[in-house]
């Protein structure tokens, strides 16, 4: 919240203050990301201290700085197990938070999020069908592409169903999410029923969301999807700001609203697919991160989107670290953890939206 107006004299100070906050936020998030990645890569059955993780990366880059892992299987654990997993967490977190920020911009509603409105589960249904029916048209990419198509169809559905006269009311959006989540759960249940034991396990894994068993091939696929989605989102950031004025006023200041909306929906579907394809449904990241970022640097999408991507990466790597270490020798499903924390946060947001909007509008 901006402080109560001060006099004209302090305007410059305030603008400088705002700039400092922005630079500060990016520095803090960047620093945090480095810290959680080093910590996250080190923790697990084979313990590698952060300094040795750093040294290992430096040696791989051809810079002989820092100590190498002292554990005999340290190097192997880092490069075959931990790094793919941490990289997947970074990419999925960034993709989910960006998807949330873009979706909120398009719907003009701070409660829109791929998990909440059922887009993630739509993508999961499509990905699960690929597994159950053993479809393989594009190798490693098949699941990601299916998730993208599933996400795209669901996002358009949400959009068409929940919009009325150029805006989306909170209650309509949330109810649409309930309806879509019910339909996609039914779809998943049916697929579970059809599936053999192995496919069944994979589907359950989706519903829970997990980064377990990440491989480099998956990281490459997710990296491509996330890079495309995040770049597209950054490019349309300026126009998303204008969309906050409402459809008509945005058009009056030169936004081709229909085209922007289609582009944004495709971007959301790409980003959701990036996260869902190999990590399953990890809800609420796209809700919590953009909201916290907005509290610090305001709602402008040009900063909100990159800051959310960074914040989402930090959050998911940290959450994954927690999921792996909270209980000894147990790898908790990360989707469960994010929902555990995100659920109450969502509740608080709804209450707040209700209060500030003076009702359920």
């Amino acid at each position, binding site marked *: *919240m*901006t*402080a109560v*107006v*001060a006099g*004209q004299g302090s*305007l410059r100070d*305030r603008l400088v203050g705002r700039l400092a906050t922005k630079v500060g936020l990016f520095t803090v998030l960047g620093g945090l990301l480095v810290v959680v990645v080093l910590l996250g890569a080190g923790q697990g059955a084979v313990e590698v201290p952060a300094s040795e993780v750093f040294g290992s990366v430096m040696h791989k880059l051809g810079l002989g700085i820092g100590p190498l892992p002292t554990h005999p299987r340290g190097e192997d654990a880092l490069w075959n197990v931990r790094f793919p997993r941490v990289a997947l967490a970074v990419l999925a977190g960034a993709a989910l938070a960006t998807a949330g920020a873009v979706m909120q911009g398009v719907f*003009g*509603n*701070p409660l829109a999020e791929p998990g909440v409105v059922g887009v993630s589960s739509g993508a999961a249904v499509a990905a699960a069908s690929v597994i159950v029916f053993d479809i393989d048209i594009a190798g490693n990419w098949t699941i990601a592409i299916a998730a993208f198509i599933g996400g795209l169809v669901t996002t358009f559905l949400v959009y068409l169903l929940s919009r009325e006269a150029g*805006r989306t009311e909170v209650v309509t959006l949330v109810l649409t999410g309930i309806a879509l989540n019910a339909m996609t759960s039914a779809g998943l249940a049916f697929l579970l029923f059809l599936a053999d034991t192995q496919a069944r396990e994979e589907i359950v894994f989706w519903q829970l969301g997990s980064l377990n068993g990440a491989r480099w091939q998956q990281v490459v696929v997710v990296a491509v999807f996330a890079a495309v989605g995040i770049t597209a989102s950054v490019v349309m950031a*300026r*126009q998303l*700001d*204008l*969309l*906050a*004025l*409402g459809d*008509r*006023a945005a*058009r*009056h*200041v*030169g*936004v*081709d*609203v229909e085209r922007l909306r289609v582009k944004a929906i495709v971007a959301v579907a790409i980003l959701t697919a990036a996260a869902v394809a190999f990590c399953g449904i990890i809800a609420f990241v796209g809700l919590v991160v953009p909201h916290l970022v*907005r509290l610090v640097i*305001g*709602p*402008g999408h040009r900063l909100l989107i990159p800051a959310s991507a960074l914040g989402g990466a930090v959050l998911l790597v940290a959450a994954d670290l927690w999921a792996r270490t909270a209980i000894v020798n147990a790898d908790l499903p990360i989707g469960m953890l994010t929902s555990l924390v995100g659920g109450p946060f969502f509740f608080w947001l709804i209450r707040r939206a209700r209060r*500030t909007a003076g009702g359920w509008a």
Partner: protein
Amino acid sequence: MLAGRGLSLRIGTASILTDVDVEVRSGEVLALVGPNGAGKSSLLGVLAGDQRPDTGEVSLCGEPLTAFSAQEAAQERGVLMQKQTLSFGFVVRDVVMMGRAPWHRSERAELDDAIVDAAIKRADVGHLVARNFPTLSGGEQGRTAFARLLAQDTPVLMLDEPTAALDIHHQEQVLSVVREAADAGAAVVVVLHDLSLAAAYADQICVLARGAVRALGTPDEVFTEELLSEVYDHPVHVLRHDGQLVVVPVRRSGGTR
């Protein structure tokens, strides 16, 4: 600059506009007046390109409006809507800056900051620049949106009841800024409810009734007791005070005491 020829609009079976001809030239303020439901806002919406007329054509700077892209149109005409909405808590200065969007990546973008500062000053929102838009009062939001319109810096200005939520001081202030813009060469269309305000600031008055143009001309020509009493279905007096037209409704008991 901006003209509509033979505009008709139907929504369902209701006829909203029938065969409306309007034109506004640069240097001129055209006021649209008329009773509730006469089609003033619909006409403005059609002229702004929000809604396609069923028949007739809107032209902007001599070209059909349909030939303009959203951005090209936004460089020629700015619109101030009756109700302001904003989904996120942008601060006032950022909202005014949104008016510069059509000029992004043009040579005029260099002037963004100077134009925004001038617009903020002209709309008298200087003391609000760092406030969150959604926390402002209705009148303050209206003036912020007015500043955004000025920042857009277009040769055609369209305003839908810009004075509705404003106090007398700001009503006069907004309309004199509009007048100045017209005197500097802008073409202005403004929907007004207050007939005395319309008489004071407009060059041309277009009286709409049931979706059709009932009268079009200078305030002196149009504002007669006979015509206004008929259009509004209420007897009115048209007075002259210090050389200005003043329109007052006839009250049976001379007001409540």
